C-alpha cells in the first residue's frame, strides 16, 4: 500500500466533508433566522472562500497538482485555464453588472416637480 497516497485521500475527503457541512450549516442557520443572521454581507464572501478552499484541497490531495517532476506542465496548464476562467467569469460579471446598473435608472435629468420618472410603472 502506498500510505502517503492513502493518507492524502482520507485527509482530503475528511476536510472536504467538513467544509461542505460548514457551508450548508451556515446557509441553514441563515434560513432558520428568516434571512437575518448571518447577514448576506458575511455569507457571500464566506461561502465563496469555503468553495475556494475546497477547490485547493481537492486539487492538491485528489488531483496531485504540484507533485509532478519539472517541467511542471500540468501546473502551467492549470494556471492558464485559471487565467482564462477568471477573465471569462469576472469580465462577464463586471460588464453585465455595469450594464444593468445603467438600465435601472433612466438617465433623464430631473427638470421640475411636476415631472415624475416613469420607471416605477413597469
Amino acid at each position, binding site marked *: *500500500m*502506498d500510505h502517503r*497516497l*492513502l493518507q*492524502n*485521500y482520507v485527509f*482530503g*475527503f475528511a476536510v*472536504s*466533508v467538513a467544509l*461542505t457541512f460548514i*457551508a*450548508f450549516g451556515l*446557509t*441553514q442557520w*441563515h*434560513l432558520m433566522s428568516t*434571512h437575518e443572521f448571518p447577514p*448576506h454581507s458575511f*455569507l*457571500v464572501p464566506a*461561502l*465563496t472562500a*469555503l*468553495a475556494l478552499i*475546497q*477547490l485547493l484541497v*481537492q*486539487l492538491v490531495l*485528489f*488531483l496531485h497538482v504540484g507533485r509532478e517532476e519539472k517541467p511542471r*506542465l*500540468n501546473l502551467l*496548464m*492549470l494556471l*492558464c*485555464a485559471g487565467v*482564462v*476562467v477568471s477573465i*471569462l*467569469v469576472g469580465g*462577464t*460579471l463586471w460588464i*453585465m453588472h455595469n450594464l444593468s446598473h445603467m438600465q435601472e435608472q433612466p438617465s433623464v435629468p430631473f427638470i421640475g416637480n411636476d415631472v415624475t420618472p416613469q420607471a416605477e410603472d413597469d
Partner: protein
Amino acid sequence: MSLKEQNEKTVFGFWVYLMSDCVLFAGLFAAYAVLWRQAAGGPQAFELANMRFVFVETLILLSSSFMMGLSVVAAHAKKKALAVWLLLSTLALGLAFLGMEAYEFSHLVAERSGPSRSAFLSSYFALVGTHGLHVLAGSLWMISLIVYLARRGFTNSGMRKLAMLSLFWHFLDIIWIFIFTFVYLFGALAL
C-alpha cells in the same frame, strides 16, 4: 521513449482536455450568473430545490470521488479484486447521484418549470445538465474500464486508463462544489 514517459504524455494530453472543459463550464457559470434573476414570473432560484436533497447529492458525489481515489491506491498496491470492487462502489454512488438529479429535473419539468420556462431556468438546466452529462459519460467509461480491468488485469494501459478516469471523476466533483455553492447555496440565500 520509455513506457513511463509515454504514459505521462498521454495523461498530460487528457489534462489539457480537462482544462479546456474548465473553460466550457466557466462559460456556463458566467451565463448563469448573468441570467439567474431573469425568472420571467416563473420559479426563482430560492424556490428551486430542496436544500437537504441537494446536500445529500453533494455528499454522494464527494464519497464517489473518495472511492475513486481508494481504488487508485488499491490498484497501485496490485490488489486487483479490491480495486475493482472500489470502482464498482464509485460507479454505484455516481449512478445514485445521477438518479437524484434525474428525479429533480423530471420534477421541475412536470411542474412546467422546464428549461423553456425562463432565461433563469435555461441557464440552470444548461449548467447543471452539462455537469450531469459529464457524470453520465464518466459512468459509461467506468463500466467499460471495469470490464477491461476484470478481463485483462492491471496492465500498463489499464493503469493509464484508471489514472485518466480518476482525474476526470475528481474534476467533476470540483465542478460540483461550485454548482453547490453558487447555484444552490447562493440561490437559497435569496440575495
